[in-house]
């Protein structure tokens, strides 16, 4: 691995008796797009706040850009761009002013920030909203503005906590496109998400977290390869019959997962499996063949779905 920008060993955070992050190890390399995937409450945001040098660990080692956040918080934060889970823009100021004051917080010269603002507005597709009050923006626009704001200081590491939660599909795709461009420019990204498609789209490598622990680590493709089959067949027999047929189905493929509304069947060839089911006189009400995703990896590792 090339030079590592972030390195955690035995990283632990407790809130009273509750262990939010339980002795985890990971490294993030320069230029990498690193993801933390897991359900709500897995400890992702807590990890982000520790990397962001605003929350201190209780045990373990954490090095960011070669420095210890406990001792060098401001020196580390100088090189981070932080997009928190909840937008915390200044509602009383305009779009431009929000970018301006944030640039000033980094001690950037007024002239530099003013020049930078045009660039950021173009990037965030907010040129026409430059003088609008933040309050009047849509959710997607606020999110893009928060990301643009985090870029004002040209950070080495951009940290995004659930960047697209709460956005409609179109707004999400615009955002993914913007993030992809940043990645192409060599910005290191650290992203938390509970959307598997987001993780697959954006992350070179990710850790799957649950209950403060790392369940698995790897690229999206290698995780799918290691923890799932090539394809998944989803069948529905109606909620009362799913259970009934489960035993029969189990014998037909590598592995099944019973969900409340459907049964997932893991196989290398979904169509062939579906034919086999019809041949044995079972008639699912609906069926769908798809490729395995990180959702399946998570299900396999924890026995639970990501969004519950």
């Amino acid at each position, binding site marked *: 691995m090339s030079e590592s920008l972030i390195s955690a060993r035995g990283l632990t955070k407790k809130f009273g008796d509750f262990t939010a992050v339980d002795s985890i190890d990971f490294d993030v390399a320069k230029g990498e797009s690193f993801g933390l995937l897991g359900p709500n409450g897995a400890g992702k945001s807590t990890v982000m706040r520790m990397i*962001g040098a*605003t*929350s*201190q660990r209780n045990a373990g080692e954490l090095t960011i850009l070669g420095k210890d956040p406990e001792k060098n*918080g*401001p*020196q580390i*934060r*100088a*090189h*981070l761009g*932080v997009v*928190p889970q*909840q937008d*915390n*823009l*200044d*509602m*009383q*100021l305009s779009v431009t*002013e929000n970018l301006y*004051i*944030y640039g*000033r*917080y*980094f*001690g*950037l010269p007024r002239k*530099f920030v003013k020049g930078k603002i045009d*660039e950021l507005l*173009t*990037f965030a597709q907010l040129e026409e909203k430059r003088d609008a009050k933040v309050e009047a923006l849509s959710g997607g626009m606020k999110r893009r503005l928060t990301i643009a*704001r985090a870029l004002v*200081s*040209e*950070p*080495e590491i951009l940290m995004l906590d659930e960047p697209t939660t709460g956005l409609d599909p179109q707004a999400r795709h615009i955002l993914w496109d*913007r993030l992809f*461009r940043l990645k192409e*420019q060599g910005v290191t990204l650290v992203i938390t998400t509970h959307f598997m498609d987001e993780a697959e789209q954006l992350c070179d490598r990710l850790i799957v977290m649950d209950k403060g622990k790392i369940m698995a680590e790897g690229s999206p493709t290698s995780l799918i390869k290691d923890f799932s089959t090539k394809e998944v067949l989803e069948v529905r027999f109606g909620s009362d019959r799913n259970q009934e047929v489960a035993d029969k189905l189990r014998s037909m493929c590598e592995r099944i997962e019973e969900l409340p509304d459907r049964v997932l069947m893991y196989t290398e060839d979904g169509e062939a499996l579906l034919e086999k089911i019809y041949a044995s006189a079972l008639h699912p009400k609906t069926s769908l063949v798809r490729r395995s995703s990180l959702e399946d990896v998570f299900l396999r590792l924890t026995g639970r779905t990501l969004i519950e």
Partner: protein
Amino acid sequence: MSTFTTRRGSSQLVDTAKIQARGAFYVAEARVRIMLKWIWMILGIAIANPILYLISVGIGLGGLIDKSVGPAGVDGVKYLTFLAPALLAQAAIQGAMDETVYPTIEGFKWHKTFYSMNSTPLSGAQISIGVFLAAFLRTIYTVLLYFGVMWAFGALDSPKAWLAIPTAIFAGISFGALMQAVAAKLENENIFFVILGRFIMMPLFLFSGTFFPLSSMPFFLQWIGWVSPLWHATELGRSLTYGHAISATMMWVHFLVLLTMLVSGLYLSARIFTRRLTK
């Protein structure tokens, strides 16, 4: 179209030592920007407030008092001369409080803007001091405007009347600093506003020797004055502007009480800001 052409990177752009030295001023700069959004309302209040007081209390009540007890009736001077330092200090306290309490609750709770400031190299203490500096500025111009209106009304006969300006500002920032620390600690601001308005601001205004000497109150009520920045500043102001008789010791006491409030308020606020942001 939207590639950043000349990316220099934060390691080239950001000077941490500079931020460590000037961070509080960056926060104050942002606060002033927000203040400017409300400037007409702030100035309107800052001017209308003294006009209303001078007409009702000064001319109305003052006229009545001066007529019935003579122009040297209250503490040896005209009622308005007696009243002026107190009204100035009261305006300073109100202005300082508005500019510390609301922004602090907003920053932690309503819009969580302090958390975004703290994700930059700024520290909790710098954010706290920055908010205070902006409040300091507002206190200064509120008092100057108030003084200007008094002057225009011919309410200042002492040639040393301007000496009540620094004492009023002192009262404002001392109380403002303390209330900023209290606001930073708050989880539920609704109850706080009820208590602040009815059980703190109102009694302080009425029982701090504002409208009559504190000594004319029954002894068991005088303690309100002793803990009130308004009384301490008013005593200082009266002594400086028209020679209201107080001992050198009491001068020191008034000065030190206000100074203690200011220093402890600033210290506590910086501490509470830091803790709450890193929780």
